[in-house]
């Protein structure tokens, strides 16, 4: 037994070494402390701006006017009225704009081609979304003979991003679908033709796109990709439970106070075991929603105008807004009938909690893209006792009851260095997907929000919205969102990793931790990530 004793001792020592001590974070490995100053921003754009500079909107093209009217009266946000005077963000006229330095888009190259140009599109659409995309793509392929698009499902957005980044240029597809948090990363690969380069030659009217949509995919004054499938968070609630609790099912809570009040009332009246169901996933409660709430509060999430005028160098979510937000959530779960489902890796746990037979919740915040799925599930009997009509949809509650939403979902990117015909072919397909008719059908079938207003006015979407106004809630939120810097949402290089950090902070807080400390830690790590990212751009 002696030898095994020695082995055990060695293992114990190794284990002890591994477990104790306060090492530094792995993010600092190899580097020696000099002040990690982020490189100065790109020369065509003015330096770091202070927060909320009224009157400048870096995401919009000079000369544009915001589409849609001012937000509804229930928005006493601190930012001024959204009718922004056209401001040219570009500096002195002697310097070429950023767009001039980027790969061009030869939209007419298809005219010279005899045969069929074959291009590939890597996407991350699942199940019925993939089906509809296939239907649209088949229709496109059949409608003309110059371009043939082949769809390749990579199994999710992360797979698309990873594989794109790891591939050599020749193995890359002509088109890739990437989510809203990958914009900075994709932009930095310098492997794409910005779609804006195609607008002029093709006569594409960018004003037709909803400002929130096009701004989400713009930075440094250039629109990089074409929004395709948009979603934003909405409030899902059980109307029957509301009625039983004495709440008006037609007036869901809008402000944070109302939300807390409703949650409390539901529990106290016994209509359900829990009020609001929250989760800490980085793609929802712990990450994406926090960005939303900052936009609603009219606050910047990171510097450099949320990373839109120049790449962000530090985050600002550890300020008072963030602390208040997390304190609010902590209180909601601890005292006001809230319930934390945790990681929610499947994305369905919060909904299933509402359908729970033993201890159901009454409401949750979920992505608008899930509405179709939820209704189908209810119809299939997954939630005994709940029928289709019981599902209520309201705008996402937030600070000041603001109706601002940050766009989520994904957009389509066109690869550069692919040959003129291929690039033109890619643009042709993108233009098809961005047309009013296609967007109308896409939104109607999938539950995504259309990227343009005229799509909601044509069939089949017009009928869908008329018949079931629940599908229109997310769209209305998007229409109401003004063209302001804080309303566009943050753009960060390692955005997903930073969302993971905020989700950790939220998980700690909901487990009883102190919000200020948790956020400070998360911010410190996020800033290190940003510094590292910027140093290797």
């Amino acid at each position, binding site marked *: 037994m002696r030898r095994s004793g020695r082995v055990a001792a060695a293992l114990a020592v190794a284990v002890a070494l591994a477990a104790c001590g306060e090492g*530094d974070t792995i993010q600092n490995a190899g580097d020696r402390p000099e002040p990690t100053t982020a490189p100065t921003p790109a020369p065509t754009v003015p330096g770091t701006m202070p927060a909320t500079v009224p009157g400048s909107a870096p995401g919009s093209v000079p000369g544009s006017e915001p589409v849609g009217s001012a937000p509804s009266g229930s928005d006493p946000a601190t930012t001024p009225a959204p009718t922004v005077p056209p401001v040219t963000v570009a500096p002195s006229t002697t310097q070429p704009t950023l767009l001039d330095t980027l790969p061009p888009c030869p939209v007419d190259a298809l005219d010279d081609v005899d045969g069929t140009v074959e291009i590939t599109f890597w996407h991350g659409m699942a199940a019925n979304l993939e089906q509809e995309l296939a239907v649209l793509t088949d229709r496109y392929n059949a409608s003309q003979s110059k371009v043939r698009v082949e769809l390749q499902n990579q199994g999710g957005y992360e797979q698309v991003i990873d594989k794109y980044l790891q591939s050599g240029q020749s193995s890359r597809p002509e088109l890739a679908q990437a989510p809203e948090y990958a914009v900075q990363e994709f932009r930095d690969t310098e492997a794409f033709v910005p779609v804006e380069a195609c607008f002029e030659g093709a006569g594409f009217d960018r004003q037709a796109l909803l400002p929130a949509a096009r701004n989400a995919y713009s930075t440094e004054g250039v629109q990089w990709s074409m929004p395709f499938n948009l979603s934003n968070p909405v409030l899902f609630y059980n109307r029957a439970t509301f009625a039983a609790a004495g709440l008006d099912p037609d007036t869901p809570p809008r402000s944070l106070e109302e939300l807390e009040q409703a949650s409390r009332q539901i529990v106290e009246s016994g209509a359900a075991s829990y009020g609001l169901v929250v989760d*800490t996933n980085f793609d929802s409660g712990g990450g994406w929603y926090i960005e939303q709430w900052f936009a609603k509060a009219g606050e910047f999430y990171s510097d450099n105008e949320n990373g839109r005028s120049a790449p962000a160098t530090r985050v600002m979510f550890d300020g008072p807004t963030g602390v208040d937000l997390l304190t609010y959530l902590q209180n909601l779960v601890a005292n006001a009938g809230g319930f934390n*489902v945790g990681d929610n890796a499947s994305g369905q746990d919060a909904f299933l909690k509402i359908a729970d037979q033993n201890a159901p919740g009454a409401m949750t915040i979920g992505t608008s893209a899930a509405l179709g799925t939820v209704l189908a599930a209810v119809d299939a009997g997954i939630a005994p006792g709940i029928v289709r009509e019981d599902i209520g949809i309201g705008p996402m509650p937030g600070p000041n009851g603001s109706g601002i939403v940050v766009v989520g979902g994904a957009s389509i990117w066109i690869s550069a260095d692919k040959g003129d015909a291929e690039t033109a072919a890619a643009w042709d397909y993108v233009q098809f997907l961005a047309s009013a008719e296609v967007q109308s059908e896409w939104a109607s079938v999938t539950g995504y929000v259309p990227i343009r207003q005229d799509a909601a006015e044509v069939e089949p979407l017009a009928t869908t919205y008329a018949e079931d106004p629940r599908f229109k809630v997310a769209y209305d939120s998007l229409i109401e969102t003004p063209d302001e810097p804080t309303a566009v949402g943050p753009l960060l290089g390692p955005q997903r990793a930073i969302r993971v950090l905020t989700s950790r902070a939220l998980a700690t807080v909901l487990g009883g931790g102190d919000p200020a400390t948790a956020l400070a830690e998360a911010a410190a790590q996020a800033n290190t990530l940003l510094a590292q990212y910027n140093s290797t751009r």
Partner: protein
Amino acid sequence: MAIRGPRRVREALLALLFLGPSAVVLGLFVIYPLGRTVLLGAKRCNAQGENCRTNGLRQYTDVAQSREFRHALWVTIKFALLTVPAGIALGLGLAVLADRHLRGIGFFRAVFSSTVATSVAVASLMWLFLLQPARGILANTGWIQDLMPVVKNPGLLNDSGTALLSVALSSVWANLGFTFIVVTAGLQSIPRELHESAYVDGASPWRRFTNVTVPMLSPTLLFVGIVLTSRAFQAYGEIDLLTEGGPVPQDSTTTLTYLIYGETSIVRNDAGLQSSVAVLLFFVMLVLAAVQLRGLKSRIHYGQ
């Protein structure tokens, strides 16, 4: 009798021919990548592996001392401690249990071997199905909470105390078939005379087990132990499918491989750091192999 001259040369050339294919494949796809990864592990890069700056050896020591690495190492060691002894014991126990001439023993042997047909993806999905929060039968139903009140509502996979255990359970189950088959083979190769002479000497079944069976099985058990340990240290698919690194913020199931490739890993954006961790993993496994082979070598019986 020494062979010299042309014969020797011919033999050497033949050896070149015979070794060639293996050497080329292994050199190109194992040795060469390892070398490049070692080099890359001393740099900090972006996600594409470009725009690197070289930091040298200190990056390795920094990574080894960093808290994320230590935590992942600790989780990996815990995972191995959970799966390897249990795996060996269960395989041995079942093999001994089924090592009898009973009617229908073939059926039981087939059942115990069955899990070898499951790959990591298959086994993990099966257990995900059982353990999924809100829908899994074994996830967070009332009776589990009655037994273990510490399991709070999120369920076994979402509770930082039980997440690693659950993943370990699925791993042990998946490896059971392999262990059972190998140990059974080992049992069957123990010469009958040994058992019979012990029996004749009046040894009880337990004494026969400890004095004959286990020593004669020691090479087999060592082999099984090495395989299970190496699988435990490289576990990825189970975690990817079941917990994605474990409930945050405790990261209860972030093992070393998940730290390298996982979707929620903090080093996703840096190809240099990923390489550092990978090389350190190699190092850890080297140490492990040395410990296992040397520490237990004396206890193996070779042949008669």
